[in-house]
């Protein structure tokens, strides 16, 4: 036990590798939230009247809501009046190439190992880098435009394609959906908008790097992806954030719409600042992600690797409306130190022959608490619908927790639901076996954990899979059970 403890301690004392602050003057408004703030955000972004009205409706609805308390995570009450709801880096010239981007920003990205240059050249990825709340540079836009793909910051899409935004905004996650979604609807700063026209297979993987920078700024991203009939898109989202002492609130909303035969693949690697060894600081991540398979034979799949944040609260869901539509959820969630995660998915089967797969891998170490909370619903019309869920938890250390709360509701007799869950620790015999063959305990654990998560990693786009593996081994270094 003693050697385990030393290793654990070592791990616990690890500093957050991505903790640094970029010193850029930020254009922030005073902390606090009121109708005036909502109006101010809207006017700063030059938004049309209908969007302002929508924000105000959301804000007024938010006032009537109470913060949810059903989740199994604990945190001190959040003072919503203490947050800053808008912040944009002050210099914001329209840029034509990356050379014009503030070198300090580029340096930040380089420290994170996600250099735009490199990605541009090597990975053939168009990156819409969201730095704090305003997009700095967008690459590959022309290539995308040639194919008719619209991929741009939300604030620009509102002006360029108001009809699309108006039609789909809030159509999957209405402004009244939940406490955090309402808050986001009222004050969302920016985000990504993506539209794939009929029959187009998006020529490249789309990616956005979210980053929280200015201190005390809640980030309220809003992402909207629409895949028209027969379209295909793979969207990547990755996050790291600098070290902070105060908790930062993040309440994002992601909406996906897939029409007939369309496919959306949404991948996330989340590595926000989780707080220090005592659980001080860290990001509060309250996210509402939902996709609607509106059309027949459509498919939405969520893949996520969650290693960061002090609190993760997210349930990427799929509403399977169209007949034969498919929903998938693959997740790896790691909680170490004082991290808490309450995450899972919702699969709502409405159409005939709809199928969903849920694979969730939770890893708890230190005093981390990991919850899987998922719902599978087979509505009356979901003839021959099928679900398979598997939730496995791995425990490392005797003070962590792993909890599973699945909800299953079936209203159709031809529907078939299978759910299985298991919780266990890293087997001593497995470690022994690997050590016999010359591996250090560390490497053995890494290997076992990676094997445990393999099913999910295999589904990540290649460059993300590499990053995810790296993240996981860094997060779990030294934590041997």
């Amino acid at each position, binding site marked *: 036990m003693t050697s385990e403890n030393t290793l654990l301690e070592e791990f616990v004392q690890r500093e957050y590798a991505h903790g640094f602050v970029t010193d850029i003057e930020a254009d922030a408004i005073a902390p606090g939230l009121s109708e005036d703030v909502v109006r101010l955000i809207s006017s700063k972004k030059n938004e049309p009247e209908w969007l302002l009205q929508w924000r105000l409706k959301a804000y007024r609805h938010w006032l009537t809501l109470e913060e949810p308390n059903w989740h199994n995570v604990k945190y001190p009450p959040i003072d919503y009046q203490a947050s800053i709801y808008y912040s944009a880096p002050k210099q914001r010239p329209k840029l034509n190439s990356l050379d014009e981007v503030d070198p300090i920003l580029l340096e930040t990205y380089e420290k994170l190992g996600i250099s735009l240059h490199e990605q541009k050249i090597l990975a053939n990825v168009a990156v819409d880098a969201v730095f704090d709340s305003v997009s700095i540079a967008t690459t590959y836009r022309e290539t995308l435009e040639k194919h008719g793909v619209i991929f741009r910051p939300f604030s620009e899409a509102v002006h360029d394609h108001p009809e699309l935004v108006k039609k789909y905004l809030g159509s999957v996650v209405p402004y009244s959906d939940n406490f955090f979604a309402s808050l986001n609807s009222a004050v969302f700063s920016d985000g990504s908008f993506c539209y794939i026209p009929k029959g187009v297979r998006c020529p490249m993987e789309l990616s956005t790097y979210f980053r929280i920078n200015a201190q005390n700024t809640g980030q309220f991203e809003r992402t909207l992806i629409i895949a028209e009939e027969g379209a295909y898109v793979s969207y990547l989202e990755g996050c790291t954030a600098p070290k902070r002492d105060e908790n930062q609130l993040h309440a994002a909303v992601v909406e996906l719409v897939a029409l007939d035969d369309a496919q959306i693949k949404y991948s996330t690697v989340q590595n926000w600042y989780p707080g220090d060894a005592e659980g001080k600081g860290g990001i509060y991540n309250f996210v509402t992600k939902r996709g609607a398979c509106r059309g027949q034979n459509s498919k939405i799949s969520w893949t996520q690797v969650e290693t960061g944040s002090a609190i993760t609260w997210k349930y990427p869901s799929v509403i399977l409306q169209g007949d034969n539509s498919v929903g998938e959820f693959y997740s790896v969630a790691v909680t170490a130190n004082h991290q808490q995660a309450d995450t899972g998915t919702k699969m709502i089967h409405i159409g005939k022959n709809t199928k969903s797969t849920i694979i969730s891998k939770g890893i708890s170490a230190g005093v981390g608490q990991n919850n899987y909370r998922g719902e599978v619903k087979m509505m*009356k019309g979901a003839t021959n619908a099928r679900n398979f869920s598997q939730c496995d938890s791995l*425990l490392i250390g005797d003070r962590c927790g792993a909890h599973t709360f*699945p*909800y*299953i509701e*079936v*209203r159709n*007799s031809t529907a*078939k*639901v299978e759910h299985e869950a298991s919780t266990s620790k890293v087997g001593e015999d497995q470690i022994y076996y690997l050590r016999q063959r010359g591996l250090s305990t560390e490497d053995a654990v890494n290997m076992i954990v990676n094997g445990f998560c393999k099913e999910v990693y295999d589904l990540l786009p290649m460059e993300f899979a590499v990053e995810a593996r790296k993240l996981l081994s860094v997060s779990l270094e030294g934590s041997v059970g």
Partner: protein
Amino acid sequence: MIATENETYQEQHATFQLQFSPAWLVELRQRGFDAFTRLGIPTKTLEDWRFTNIAPLVRRPYALASLAHSDDETTNDEIKALVQQATLDEEFHRLVFINGRYSDEWSLMHDLSVGVVIDNLGNAICDHPSDVQTLLASDHKLDDSTFAALNTAFINDGAFIDIPDGVVLDRPVHLVFLSIGSNHTVSHPRNLIRVGKHSKAHVIESYLGHGDAYFTNAITQVTLEESAELDHHKLQHEQVGALHIALTGVDQRTSSRFRSHYFSFGASLARNELNCVLDGEQIETTLNGLYMPKGDQLMDCRTRIDHAKPHCKSYELYKGILDDRAKGVFNGKIFVHQDAQKTDAKQSNQALLLSDDAVVNTKPQLEIYADDVRCTHGATIGALDEDALYYLRSRGVPAELARKILIFAFANDVVQGVELPAVRRHLESVLLSGHELSEDILSRRT
């Protein structure tokens, strides 16, 4: 609305408290009533009642069921018929409770070994007040439940079984609870069972009734001392139209073994809560259950296993068969405390949906705070296996019969876990007659 409910119950309770009882009991009941008032009737907004809408059913307060007059001939015949229906084996000790009160006339007691007490609670309160007090005081999360509090407020009678150390009870104890001639009345049986060190017993609880719209609100508290063993069976055959709410709380000490067999057939709404606390090492707990709602029945099965100490095992298998517009709720929680290393817990819930109007809500939960454990749960919901149907049909079994055979086999899995042949036979015949199958099916088995 809540106010009028409470007023009615308040009045009832005041009258009830007037009867002569020891001071500690009066005080306990008062505490129960205060808790009931504080908790109020649960609504669907509470997580524990999310799928079971009880409020409309208890909106009109139930009157306390009065003693059945057995000098009345029709009542007498009704009781006789029900007792006959309930009887499993004349060799069993049989305690009959009518409208929540012990009936000497219908009970059947055989000789008991020295030190064994099998009595009704009314007597035990006088004869063994300190034992009763201790057993009543054991915590089974009674404080959190409105209906448990209501039961405590009206504690009066029930079974009292106290088996001393080192006794293997030679015959099972059968507790029969009848509700008779009742019109919107409620009974609150409270059963206390203690099995001493290295002792062993079988207990069966049967619930039956005559007449509609009555309400049974039962609590059974079980304490198993070191290395004690208990097989607990519950056969819920309430009249359709009745409301059945029950809580069984089990406290287990080191090396004890508890096996629960729950079978739910009757009532318009049946909610059964089973809480086991494994407070010692090397404990084994097995929970088996079968619920078969049809028509407009709702059956809500809740289990909670608290692994408080290391090296314990728990197995759970609950199966549901739902037909017509029935609703089934399963809520199973396995809670592993930080100290409970080397826990081995398995839970499985399977539901068979025979109609598109039936609804299943399943919520298996694992809450684990220790690391060196093996915990699994599985839940499956679906229709009958087409391949199995095809197999039977290809061998000349008509479609309808094949269907029945498969349903029977699905349910029989749980029945075969019952050790007592008399209980098993009873359940088999219930299943067979429910599906109009002949006994031949059983005799053909190898």
